[in-house]
């Protein structure tokens, strides 16, 4: 059996449908990413799989055990790093880790080998209170705490939100290392660039999985002709391209704007923009990224 299996998981809070018949499976040893915004239902899904809430309907198994009937077995086998809180701010780095080890009936020493590559970053601050660590360090400590009992499945709910780009990269390097040790990892993130580091990803929105595949396949399935435009006045350019007949969508994309249109439309657009007096105007054909795929799905959603 796969490490995580769900069958039509559904949960509502009052009139809000947090999760709508979500069915998916995560293979053993897979690094599986859930990509979606605040409110997409990611946390609800994690809470069900971590046996903290029961679904209204549907079933789920983690490491072969049923989340309803066999929750005690599951709790022994998983590591869970919730998005907001998982550390005791008034305990030191070392105390937090010892506490989590004792909860699971183990010691830091017993499983030190697994956390050593991560904990070595923290050891110089072992006596500092967790509350006085900054973003990147807190996340590393929380990861150590989630790993201290050698779980077979790891749930990480937005571990890198609010973390700077360099610390994010370090964190993902650590996940790659854990994956190579055979630990199954389910991780959620709003950062599209992190999607590329997963074996498979699910794009999630309003309680549903919109698309599931490898990042490469998702990118390959992008069908529109995608272009990038740049000029001296980017704000005005955004409106001009967006409202030009034949342009399907146009949005900011870092230093450029991305837009989709047929080649014939782009030729007319060039002439039009030249006449509007833009300086240093360039338009070039570009390959789609995961972020462009998300924007395309977003459009389909709105019709």
């Amino acid at each position: 059996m796969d490490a995580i299996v769900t069958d039509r998981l559904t949960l509502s809070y009052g009139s809000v449908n947090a999760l709508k018949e979500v069915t998916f499976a995560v293979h053993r040893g897979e690094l599986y990413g859930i990509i979606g915004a605040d409110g997409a239902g990611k946390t609800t899904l994690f809470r069900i799989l971590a046996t903290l809430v029961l679904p209204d309907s549907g079933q789920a198994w983690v490491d072969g055990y049923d989340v309803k009937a066999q929750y005690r077995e599951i709790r022994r086998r998983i590591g869970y790093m919730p998005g907001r809180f998982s550390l005791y701010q008034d305990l030191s780095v070392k105390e937090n880790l010892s506490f989590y080890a004792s909860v699971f009936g183990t010691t830091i020493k017993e499983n030190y080998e697994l956390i050593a590559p991560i904990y070595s970053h923290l050891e110089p601050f072992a006596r500092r209170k967790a509350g006085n660590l900054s973003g990147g360090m807190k996340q590393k400590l929380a990861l150590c705490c989630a790993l201290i009992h050698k779980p077979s499945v790891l749930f990480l709910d937005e571990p890198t939100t609010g973390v700077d780009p360099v610390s994010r990269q370090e964190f993902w390097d650590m996940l790659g290392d854990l994956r190579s040790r055979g630990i199954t990892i389910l991780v959620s993130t709003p950062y599209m660039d992190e999607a590329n580091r997963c074996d498979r990803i699910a794009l999630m929105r309003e309680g549903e999985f919109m698309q599931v595949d490898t990042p490469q396949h998702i990118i390959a399935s992008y069908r529109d002709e995608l272009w990038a435009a740049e000029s001296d006045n980017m704000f005005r350019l955004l409106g001009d391209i967006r409202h030009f007949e034949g342009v399907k969508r146009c949005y900011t994309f870092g230093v450029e704007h991305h837009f989709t249109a047929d080649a014939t439309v782009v030729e007319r657009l060039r002439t039009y923009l030249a006449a509007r007096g833009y300086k240093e105007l360039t338009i070039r054909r570009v390959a789609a990224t995961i972020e462009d795929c998300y924007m395309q799905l977003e459009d389909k959603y709105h019709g």
Partner: protein
Amino acid sequence: MDSVIKVEELTKRFGNFTAVDHISFSVQRGEIFGFLGANGAGKTTAMRMLCGLSRPTSGRGMVAGYDIETQYEDIKNNIGYMSQRFSLYEDLKVWENIRLFGGIYGVDEKEIKHRTDELLAELHFEKERNAYVKSLPLGWKQKLAFSVAIFHRPSIVFLDEPTGGVDPATRRQFWEMIYAAAEQGITIFVTTHYMDEAEYCNRVSIMVDGRIDALDTPRRLKSEFGATTMDEVFRALARHAGRKE
């Protein structure tokens, strides 16, 4: 062009730890200024001084025409502030949030009524006037939070990671609002960990170990560092950080 922020040698020490180490820069009216740095580089400490919430150990600064050392109460009245973590009261209705923040910033009762109608019409939110904020989709909440932050017409608004944890579509809508506000002359001071957003700024500063190690337009920074993206510029600078936390 006149400057809305001007600081010289601004420094903040906690005991023998120098969180902000002699930073000097200025921000022009109507500019979108990106304030970047790794976690722990000193951004939050610097921003708290600029917002009048803490006093510098040494150095000088003017924000919105007031001295950060002596006129910090005036600063608080003349700036806008929004963060991802806190911006609106979820258990209050849309109109109640607007009225509360308008009142806190000293906008008079009649003017609040008038501007509330105007704001709701602009956002196409007339139907949501009596809705609880917690019932709004995230994208709407953000638009409302930003509008509330500039409701008292400050000359500058501070945005502290306004888009953390937000999906790509909503982030873009938010940046279009920022652009529009800047076009109207409101100065934008923004922190972010998304490097594509750094590209949307007129100028960007990057803090490393309490100092500003780079400050220029994204285009010039990239050419200076021989990089194609701001992400590469950021990495090149942050790699040399001595301070881990």
